[in-house]
């Protein structure tokens, strides 16, 4: 395209789309066409059934070539729908794509206006505005910024593990940051997984060790992201590695130190076992922990607390791996994309006091029972009560902290299914009579309803009704010494008292308590419950509002393992699409500062929600980094000197647009 053509007198083409009958049924197209012909600089006006179709696009392309048009207006649908389409068509015909302007006469007019005459007038006003504006449009170029090829994955649950491995297999360098001393997440605590009842360890541990040995993966455990800077394709991330007091590269996980510790028995709450067992100050989180490296807890280690221990662990270690002088370490990373997979936390059952958790020893959470049924758990897979006896009657209460106005309104999606799993495992291992108290059974999923059906046939009891309370108030001799679950059986309309030895609370899934801090750190959004927000619930389920940052797994909302893995795969695909392209194109609708007008007052700097503005001390003016600017226009509106302006939205363009609407006839 020639320079002269672009700077020449504006020659505008206007194209009015019928959108089938979407627009044509409400807007008098012929009247809009006739009106557009009267507007300044307009050379040609046409209408067509579907402007977005190939022949539609060809119309305007032909006119550019044959009539020498240098400005294009299409009056059709929302720019979100087809702005890109028409920009490309314009560009393909040899014109800078920013010489194109769209007027939305579908979403803004025909779909929302009842009166045909008014709809027509409004369409004319919008066309008038677009024509006046397009005349002032300038040629702009998309900014190309190179993308760093490395990817950061935050959270080493099944979502993070799957994402890291898939990326690494695609040849990307991946850093996996996990805040616990081992990767594995919740899944590592389970014995079996629904609905197939396949052994969780058998499918998870190989993946964990693959993460450990994969040449393309750097695993940072016992670590947390503490700072994120930069933008899509170019993030600088700071990770804090907490001191383990054991050198990861030296330790071989032989556990000699644990044996040798001055504490002969475990004394401290073992969080991996949900507090059902005790550990020593030096410990291996669980036998299959990855990395297979012990750590020392500074809260309980005598040496770290007082400096007065015999340090038998250090003596026992033949590899000199133990080092009490270790300190936290900061690691800096440069990555192009980030996948957040921080998972969930379970509902704190003490928040519903009428279920007696924390008061009655034999009321358990589902996660505790997962550890009880686990072959490598604290009881070796035996389902035992606190006193070591085997329960004969067990009640499982669904929806604890889910579907409840007072706690969480959402359905946690997985607890019906895991309750069925636990009912099956408990019944199988103890022959106990098992009661499931549910509000509704929610078993959508491949093979899930069939699993429910199997349980019904196995003789597990199902009572439909939210349990009112768990009480030690006993009325009959058979209730004596037991816990009684009181619930309305809504299918037969009676209140039932179910005496049991063990109560399992199927606690719901919640966003992490620190979700808001994490959200801020990565500059993404979360729902008011704390679930990380996807860019679009249907069409962009793993993207966030911050380009280059993706989400996967239960941090986005409650989900089971199959859905978590599928979503992790999707996040990987999006991340690969970004890094493999090698560059990102940034919208040129960024703000810029006219140096001569800037007084250096700093007003805009504080207002920019994306921290895109910096103060240049030498020049004494503010400067906008176009790669960070999202084109929100805040600074433009705020600048008292009119120094901040925005491409595609200059004051003059906006005034002309307004004038176009107000003075169109």
């Amino acid at each position, binding site marked *: 395209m020639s320079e002269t053509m672009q700077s020449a007198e504006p020659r505008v083409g206007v194209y009015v789309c019928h959108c089938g009958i979407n627009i044509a049924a409400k807007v008098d197209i012929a009247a809009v066409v006739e009106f557009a012909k009267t507007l300044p600089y307009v050379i040609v006006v046409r209408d067509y059934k579907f402007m977005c179709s190939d022949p539609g696009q060809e119309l305007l392309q032909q006119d550019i070539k044959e009539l020498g048009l240098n400005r294009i207006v299409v009056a059709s649908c929302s720019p979100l729908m087809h702005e890109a389409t028409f920009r490309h068509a314009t560009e393909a015909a040899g014109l800078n794509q920013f010489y194109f302007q769209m007027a939305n006469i579908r979403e803004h007019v025909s779909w929302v206006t009842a009166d045909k005459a008014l709809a027509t007038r409004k369409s004319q006003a919008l066309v008038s505005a677009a024509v006046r504006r397009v005349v002032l449009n300038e040629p702009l170029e998309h900014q190309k910024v190179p993308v760093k090829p490395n990817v950061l994955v935050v959270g080493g649950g099944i979502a993070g593990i799957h994402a890291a491995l898939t990326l690494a297999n695609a040849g990307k360098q991946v850093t996996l940051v996990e805040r616990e001393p081992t990767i594995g997440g919740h899944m590592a605590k389970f014995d079996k997984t629904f609905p197939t009842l396949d052994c969780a360890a058998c499918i998870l541990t190989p993946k964990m060790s693959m993460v450990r040995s994969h040449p393309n993966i750097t695993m940072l455990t016992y670590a947390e992201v503490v700072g994120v800077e930069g933008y899509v394709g170019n993030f600088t991330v700071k990770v804090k590695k907490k001191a383990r007091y054991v050198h990861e590269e030296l330790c071989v996980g032989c556990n000699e130190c644990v044996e040798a510790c001055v504490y002969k028995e475990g004394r401290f709450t073992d969080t991996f076992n949900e507090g059902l067992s005790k550990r020593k100050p030096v410990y291996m989180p669980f036998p299959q922990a990855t990395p297979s490296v012990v750590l020392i807890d500074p809260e309980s280690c005598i040496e770290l607390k007082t400096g007065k221990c015999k340090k038998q662990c250090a003596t026992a270690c033949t590899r000199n791996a133990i080092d009490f002088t270790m300190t936290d370490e900061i690691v800096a990373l440069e990555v192009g994309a980030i996948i957040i997979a921080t998972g969930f936390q379970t509902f704190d059952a003490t928040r519903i*006091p*009428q279920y007696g958790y924390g008061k009655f020893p034999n009321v358990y959470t589902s996660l505790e029972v997962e550890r009880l049924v686990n072959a490598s758990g604290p009881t070796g897979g035996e389902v035992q009560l606190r006193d070591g006896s085997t329960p004969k009657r067990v009640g499982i209460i669904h929806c604890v902290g889910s579907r409840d106005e007072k706690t969480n309104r959402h359905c946690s999606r997985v607890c019906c299914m895991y309750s069925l799993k636990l009912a099956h495992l408990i019944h199988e291992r103890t022959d106990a009579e098992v009661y499931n108290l549910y509000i509704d059974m929610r078993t959508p999923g491949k093979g899930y309803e069939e699993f429910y059906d199997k349980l019904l046939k196995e003789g597990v009891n199902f009572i439909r009704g939210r349990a009112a*309370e768990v*009480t*030690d*108030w006993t*009325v009959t001799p058979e209730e004596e010494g037991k816990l009684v679950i009181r619930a309305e059986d809504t299918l037969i309309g009676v209140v039932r008292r179910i005496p049991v030895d063990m109560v399992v609370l199927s606690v719901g899934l919640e966003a992490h308590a620190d979700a808001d801090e994490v959200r801020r750190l990565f500059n993404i959004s979360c729902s008011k419950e704390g679930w990380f927000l996807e860019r679009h619930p249907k069409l962009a389920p793993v993207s966030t509002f911050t380009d280059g940052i993706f989400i996967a797994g239960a941090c986005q909302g409650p989900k089971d393992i199959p859905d978590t893995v599928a979503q992790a795969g999707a996040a990987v695909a999006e991340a690969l699409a970004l890094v493999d392209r090698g560059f990102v194109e940034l919208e040129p609708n960024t703000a810029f500062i006219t140096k001569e007008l800037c007084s250096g007052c700093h007003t805009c700097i504080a207002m920019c929600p994306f921290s895109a503005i910096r103060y240049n001390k030498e020049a004494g003016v503010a400067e906008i980094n176009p790669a960070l600017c999202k084109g929100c226009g805040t600074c433009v509106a705020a600048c008292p000197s009119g120094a901040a302006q925005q491409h595609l939205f200059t004051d003059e363009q906006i005034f002309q647009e307004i004038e176009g609407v107000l003075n169109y006839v």
Partner: protein
Amino acid sequence: MNHLYYPGCSLKSTGRAYEESLLAVCATLGVGLTELQDWNCCGATSYMAIDEVKAFALAARNLALAEEQGKVGPGTPTVDLVAPCAACYLVLAKAQHCLEENKEVGGKITAALAAAQLQYTGRVVMRHPLDLFTNALGLDAIKAQVTKPLTGLKVACYYGCQIVRPYATFDDQYHPMTMDHLVTALGGTPVDWPLKTRCCGGSLTGTVQEVGLRMSYHLLKEARKRGADVLLTACPLCQFNLECYQDPMKALFPDHEPLPVLYFTQLMGLALGLERARLGLQRLFVPFRQPVGV
């Protein structure tokens, strides 16, 4: 400290001992209670089930009187209205919520008040004596005045269904503790028992007696089972159901053993060293003869 006091019909009749003990205790603790003049039925009883608007209008008249006599109105602070009867307390609170939240009923009530040259602007704070003693006065102030501590006395604190539900304004809905803490402050030992808020039978005792009696019987039985020497109530109807029917209860459930049922204010009075007659203890059907303060 001065508060308006709404006795309600029970405290002038079956619940006389509640009023007697409450007034005696408040006088001793320096809590002034001024009876609301010209008060009327709170609107509880069957009113609520038959005509909610009328029931709320009755309740609202008391609230309007409280504002008038407490000299509060738009732009002023609030006035406390103490309602010892659990039913009065609940209905008056319910009327406040209804006036605030339900425009339709609220409008009718406002119109009814206006016809009587009254208005209610939302400046009354309903208080149950438990709330008053625990939060306005404070347990330390009470503890300081105990002369005959309830040493060794095991007490089942029974809150009933109304004072913490549905509006748990001053205590937990499921495990209320204010009365337990009060008993501890008096030197007694509250027993941990699970039926603190379970229904006493309410008006069933008067209508379907067998059902009502069974409900009361279970409460007393469990309290005994947990070692209680006495059960405390904070409601005249609970006290009536649990105490006055122990004979027919015994006829229906032969294993029933009598248990004294006192207003918590009566036991407070004993710990504060007041005479039994000032506390209405002579009115009890199941006498309370535990030595206190030895």
